[in-house]
């Protein structure tokens, strides 16, 4: 079967993006000291990437699983994790 890129997969999902509030915020400063950067392999939506030696993260496309929050060695400080505000975020039609 044709491999789908993560962007293509996320393109199949319905999202209501909250332009006013980012439900996950990443502290790039603290990420610099993180050698393993497990968020980059573990996020099922591939939203964490390294660009120019800096963590780049986009909360649109988040599947709200909570994996990044638990795998981050500096959880609570480097990642501020919440669910999106009511009505925003991913909307599964199948689930």
């Amino acid at each position, binding site marked *: *079967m044709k*491999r*789908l890129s*993560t962007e293509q*997969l*996320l393109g*199949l*999902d319905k999202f*209501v993006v909250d332009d006013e509030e980012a439900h996950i915020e990443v502290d790039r400063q603290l990420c610099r000291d993180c050698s*393993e950067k*497990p968020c*980059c*392999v*573990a*996020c*099922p*939506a*591939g939203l964490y990437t390294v660009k120019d030696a800096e963590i780049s993260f986009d909360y649109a496309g988040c*599947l*709200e*699983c*909570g*994996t990044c*929050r*638990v*795998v981050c060695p500096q*959880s*609570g400080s480097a990642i501020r994790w*919440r*669910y*999106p*505000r*009511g*009505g925003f*975020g*991913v*909307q*599964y*039609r*199948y*689930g």
Partner: protein
Amino acid sequence: MGEEKFTAIVVGAGPAGSTAAMVLAKEGNDVLLIEKGASPGSKNMFGGRMYCHALNRILPNFWEEAPVERAVARETVTFLHGGKAVSLTCRNSDWTKPPYHSVTLLRAEFDSWLASKAEEAGAELACNIRVDDLLTEDGRVVGIRAGEDEILADAVIAADGVNSLLAQKAGLAKMFSPGQVSTGMKQVIELPEETIRDRFGLEGNAGAVQLFVGECTGGMPGGGFLYTNKSSVSLGLVVSASALQRSSVRAPDLMEDFKNNPEILPLIEGGKVAEYSAHLIPEAGLGMMPRIYGDGILVAGDAAGFVLNLGYVIRGMDFAIASGEAAARAVICAKERGDFSGNSLSGYQELLKKSFVLQDLEAYRKVPEFMENERLYAEYPGLLTSIFTNVFSVDGSQPIRLHSKILNRVKESGLSLAQLAVDGWKGATRL
């Protein structure tokens, strides 16, 4: 919502929350069921099958009106390694007759339906609202805060799922560790009904479930799953979060590799991916159970870690439903006493001890530790597939008896017989 005070506010309209709200409302209590999604189920995903017993006790013959997909008649466990596969299949046609043993379903539709049953019973459902915090007074929970709104209740039931921020805010739960949860990823792949029947050898509305162990997770603890729905299959992977932390392959790539495994490809060929989803699973059983009651608060379902994964059986829905029911019953008793203190609400734990929820989790207490054994995923699938491919191979060479064939493969695998005996004994006594 004004100055009204509810008997109970239930946070989260998953199976735990909707069941709790339904049971409370049926007894004439004022209940508010709050869900952050635009509709119940719109935030939820799972593998794909619910064992029917728990809901059938509360809503007899629920399948006659609930949006369920197929009654599971065929169970298969498959070990995968290097293009080889060994499967064990069990078929039981009794499972396709009422009372159904288990049914596949899709959460967006099913959770909406279950929440509608709570509404029918008289519960008030409020969607599009994220509960941000608990209201407390002298250390007792007296309500919730959502944005600017504060709403009061005698008791709050936290049925807010695995990432339960409420149980953590109430000081009942600590943040879990990567070793205590797994990440699940799933794709819903649409296929015509006839194709599903033909490919899985099914009749009528019968369904098949297939679980996979081995190279699908790159040897990491976890496995693959496939559930047949009416006109789609739910295909996915579950991988231990602590293994994923060290994985060399990105999680979404593992999933794409899995789809192209020779054992999977023929089952989904020609299908159209309709949705991609991900969610955590609490895997540590009693090892991660928070305090499940406090002054004015109870914790139910995934928020309490009520999931049992035996590898060949994965249960969370029936635990969520039964714990939601027990939480509701505990609140009803507390109301009769006019006392919503933790002491009064502790009846919840007693109810769970009398039900399968804590009895099963207690009986399988040592399973989570057994399932962490990496050999189960990295070594044994290879050993099993090499034994069986050898047993079924004919090439005209010298005859070798079965036991020697097996012993030779064990020797090749580099595993010691003592290790095999220990793991075999642990598996046999714990599962």
